């Protein structure tokens, strides 16, 4: 798993990690049962404070994305099909929110925006 953090972004590093792992799981880059690197090794590899990593893991546990195992690294938790789909939708919505803001700022009609979005989706397929 490739994780990249920018410590100089205003976005706390733990949030950057949560988002990347959440995405990796939702998109199927990480399979259920797959092991996540330990706090210690990630801290060394990314050069960030181990507390930051524990915090990210803690949140992902609460969300049901990761599963804690005593004395061993976390694994990706098994999830029901419905949950997988709804987390994918949530992530898409989150990514589109700034686009919605920009559309309103540019004073464009929703229909036009949707048309552009549809065209972009089809372009990518080719």
């Amino acid at each position, binding site marked *: 798993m490739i994780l990249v953090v920018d410590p100089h972004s205003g976005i706390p590093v733990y949030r950057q990690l949560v988002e990347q792992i959440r995405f990796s799981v939702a998109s199927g880059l990480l399979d259920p049962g797959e092991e996540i690197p330990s706090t210690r090794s990630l*801290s060394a590899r990314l050069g960030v404070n*181990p507390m930051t990593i524990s915090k990210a893991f803690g949140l992902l546990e609460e969300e049901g994305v990761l599963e804690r195992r005593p004395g061993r690294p976390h694994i990706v938790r098994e999830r029901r099909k419905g949950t997988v789909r709804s987390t994918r939708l949530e992530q898409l919505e989150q990514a589109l929110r700034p686009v919605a803001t920009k559309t309103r700022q540019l004073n464009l009609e929703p229909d036009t925006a949707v048309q552009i979005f549809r065209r972009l989706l089809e372009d990518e397929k080719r």
Partner: protein
Amino acid sequence: MELAFETNGLTKRFDSVTALDGIDLKVRRPSIVGLLGRNGSGKTTLIQHLMGLHLPAEGSVTTLGRPSAELGHDELIRIGYVPQDIRLLDWMTVEQHLRYVSCFYPAWDREREQRLTAELELDVDKPVGALSTGNLQKLAIILAVCHHPRLLILDEPVSDLDPIVRGKLLEFLLELLREDEATILVSSHVLRDVEKIVDWVICLDHGNVVTDAALDELKELYSEWRVLSTNGNLPERFSESFVLTQEVSGRQARLLVKQGTSEVNTFRKTHGVEVTERSLNLEEMFPILVGMRSS
């Protein structure tokens, strides 16, 4: 929770100048804490109190569980200290100096010493008096960490080191946190370095604590809002109390706010605006934290 140090109402005056004005702090272990502030804000004076080099005029300081005036052998062998103004024995070679200091510490780790001198590229055969400022800083740091300190205090430790060495040093500080469960207090103006490793931030201003919070919390608290009106001009000034600075120009505004995302929707509706939020990094929030915002 184990505390690395604690101060209660710590006050210090030098003649008519109040250098520290009732400082209350509790710093846990392990942790990497950034001690920030402008020149003359009291950082070094505070550090010297933790080491027992100054005694409080009022209030108290407890370091590793003991009043700082009574720090003895048991505590001192668990503290590492790199002062801003490094004074070492010029006539010794680096190797001799390392051997000399190692005698004081039963837990001296020769392997760590050798690894660090190699990694930081320090020539151990050179006389200390012939070292450049940067190399002197490296030696002072190595001398302060090979006994596995529980509390490591670094006063402007990296100012003369090149980016490669600074990077290695930051990695090593994280290792110290992981392996030794140390608390590391770093006073530095190089905010980009501090931001990479600290979990906690303390800011001093004119001898007062103006910030004492987790770095993540601060990043979530301070942000920039780019505001664009969707229905005509904006008010001349926004009067919301969470707006710290503002720059309004016709239909556009740039605000620095002390507010999580919770208020943003109300703000949007109240003013009929679109808001693009961006969190501030440490360098950007520093002027706000030390009370230098220009509103």
